[in-house]
């Protein structure tokens, strides 16, 4: 029993909070908002864990990290051991500790949360990973097992990276094919620096490489080579598809062709991936007006609006059809956005975009909504209020209203089962598609979901691929 405190004493400790950059300062820079817990706070937080006999928190984690075990190692100050413990289940702890929606996963079921606040599991995970990085304690495990079979992974997002790491650990020869010029998927082109620094991403991706996975960028499967060519000509015996859901939806209202109207994907790709924030030192431009509106209520919308604020927008509106309660974004991010001065226009629906004589956006017309009966998704359906139309002056409209899978592979792979929504259909246990040697996971099968779900799928697929290839393929 590493924890010196009695359960009643543990429960008296309040949940510890991260140290954060002050909002008035941070909404003008791209540095990370949260510094995480320091050693002292982490030790205190770790001691709150009741080390339950039946640790339900593990069931809440899609990749089943042994949560009480790593927390006990923190209490023993064996941070390196704690990091290794996490990595047994999750090869990207510094990323997950930052962006995993822990409040809906491991923490929502934590026993301590019944009467008190749950243990800050995600923040402890981040602390351990950061401590290990800062003190250069990481040693790449040596893979001794060798299986002479090649597996191709398509997409270097969290699904692909996780599947690759698991298969390399089992001894397979693994190649990741990535369409863009850099790795990470949404972790790089979508999630901004102020939530997930690229340096952290680079370190964790490099560890997957160091473990033994080969990564080839600038390779679009379906174009540079088809999925069948990977199998028939390049000798891959199984393929995992983790190509995500990158194609943005548009509202299809009038005025979307005006300059200044962008999908959140384009906006974030220009800024995060192409580094438009540094223009003209870098070459990809972005133009953000004094007043801007972002449409949507998810993580993507929150990232877009906070990014626009940082690029100098004086008024940054977030327009959402339902009420704040229904917003799918992480609570922490909604709070952060509010602290940074984002103006929330809830129960508001855009009707049309108005342009000026140069074909630039000058305003957006909106309508007020009220909530009616719950719809299929269980959320109360917004209904327009007649006569409530009004105009807001803005120079940019950024749409973050959802994404669907990029269609290239589906269109170029005969016999691959695809749903009406464009998602690839899989068996939800084995992640196998309609083709026995092709597996899939992440946003490609769910539409937009989460990092940790993508990682769960990558892991589950790796186990199935192993089973399939051991049976002789």
């Amino acid at each position, binding site marked *: 029993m590493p924890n010196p405190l009695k359960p009643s004493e543990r429960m008296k400790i309040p949940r510890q909070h991260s140290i954060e950059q002050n909002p008035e300062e941070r909404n003008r820079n791209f540095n990370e908002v949260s510094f995480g817990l320091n050693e002292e706070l982490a030790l205190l937080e770790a001691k709150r864990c009741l080390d339950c006999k039946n640790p339900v928190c593990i069931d809440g984690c899609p990749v089943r990290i042994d949560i009480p075990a790593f927390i006990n190692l923190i209490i023993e100050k064996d941070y390196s051991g704690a990091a290794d413990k996490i990595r047994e289940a999750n090869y990207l702890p510094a990323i997950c500790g930052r962006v995993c929606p822990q409040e809906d996963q491991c923490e929502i079921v934590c026993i301590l949360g019944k009467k008190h606040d749950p243990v800050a599991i995600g923040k402890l995970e981040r602390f351990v990973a950061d401590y290990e990085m800062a003190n250069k304690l990481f040693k790449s495990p040596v893979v001794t097992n060798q299986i002479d079979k090649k597996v191709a992974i398509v997409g270097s997002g969290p699904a692909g990276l996780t599947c690759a790491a698991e298969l390399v650990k089992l001894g397979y020869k693994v190649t990741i094919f990535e369409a863009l010029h850099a790795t990470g998927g949404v972790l790089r082109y979508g999630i901004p620096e102020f939530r997930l620094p690229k340096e952290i991403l680079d370190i964790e991706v490099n560890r997957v490489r160091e473990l033994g996975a080969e990564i080839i960028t600038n390779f679009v499967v379906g*174009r540079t080579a088809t999925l069948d060519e990977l199998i028939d000509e390049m000798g891959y015996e199984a393929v995992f598809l983790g190509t995500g859901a990158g194609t943005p939806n548009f509202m299809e209202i009038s005025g979307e062709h005006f*300059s200044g109207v962008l999908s959140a994907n384009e906006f974030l790709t220009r800024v995060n991936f192409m580094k438009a924030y540094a223009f003209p030192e870098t070459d990809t431009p972005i133009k953000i007006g004094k007043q801007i509106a972002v449409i949507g209520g998810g993580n993507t919308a929150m990232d877009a609006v906070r990014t626009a604020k940082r690029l100098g927008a004086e008024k940054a509106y977030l327009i959402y059809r339902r009420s704040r309660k229904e917003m799918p974004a992480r609570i922490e991010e909604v709070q952060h956005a509010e602290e940074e001065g984002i103006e929330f226009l809830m129960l508001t629906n855009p009707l049309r975009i108005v342009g000026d004589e140069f074909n630039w956006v000058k305003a957006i017309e909106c309508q007020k909504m009220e909530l009616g009966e719950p719809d299929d998704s269980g959320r109360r359906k917004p209904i327009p209020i007649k006569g409530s139309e009004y105009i807001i002056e803005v120079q940019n409209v950024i749409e973050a209203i959802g994404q669907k899978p990029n*269609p290239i592979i589906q269109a170029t792979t005969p016999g691959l089962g695809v749903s009406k929504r464009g998602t690839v259909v899989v068996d939800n246990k084995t992640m196998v598609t309609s083709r026995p040697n092709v597996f899939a996971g992440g946003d490609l099968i769910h539409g937009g979901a989460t990092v940790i779900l993508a990682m769960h799928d990558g892991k589950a697929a790796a186990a199935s691929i192993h089973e399939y290839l051991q049976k002789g393929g």
Partner: protein
Amino acid sequence: MYKIIKKQKLSDTITKLVIESPLVAKKRKAGNFVMIRVVEGGERIPITIADSDIEKGTVTIIVQAIGKTTKMLCSLNEGDFVLDFVGPLGEPTPIHNYGTVVCIGGGVGTAEVYPIAKALRDAGNEVIGIIGARSKDLIILEKEMGEVCNKLYITTDDGSYARKGFVSDQLLELINKGTKIDGVYAIGPIPMMQVCANVTKPFGIKTYVSLNPIMVDGTGMCGGCRVTVGGKMKFACVDGPEFDAHQVDFDELIMRNRTYIDLEKTSLEKYEEHICNLYEKSLSGKGVK
């Protein structure tokens, strides 16, 4: 990193580059393009594949230097590298035997229509070529087009070479003379494509154009390249870049392509200033004033 094997200046502003990329060389079809990033921090830009050599594993592109990225690309030499080169992207041109097809190239657009003309000729079509430019020195690929076309017409805006006038004038003349035309491919500056579309529309001649909106990823992930075709939103990089010319909203495309015009200018000025400084430094380095 992708190596430049061969470089040839076709005109003052137009340069042909042969780049090593065996996978792209093997897979590419007429109508495909690549996305190129020249250096770290650089933009990703789309360039059509003009030709390829599967044996040598090379891809040929023909680039007109108009802004920072294309100028940087054209300033590279044999043995230099571009950082990123990905493709082949876009839907390839549907190649069938249509009968008689007119392939029109305006300016650097000739480089984009050339592979299509070649593929159509190989598929058994009678190919009539029309290539045009502002003046004589801007006419490119005359020899190559001459080899793949059954007949080739040339126009220059200023009359400095061949017929004075626009490619569309030549097209209209062919139609008026009663030439049987089963399809038209017109690629070049947007106004040129628009005029060609207007010429063929009253005659009901199927006409295709290759659109050149601003692109970021080139794989369908940003929607920056969206164009309106037949009243519907299309992503040029995955649904195109070729579309039915009679359905395209050209005016919208012209306006959208102006989105970053002032910033592009800043970027170019900064680059040219930098080049000037380098030049002056190299002069003073040699002790020349």
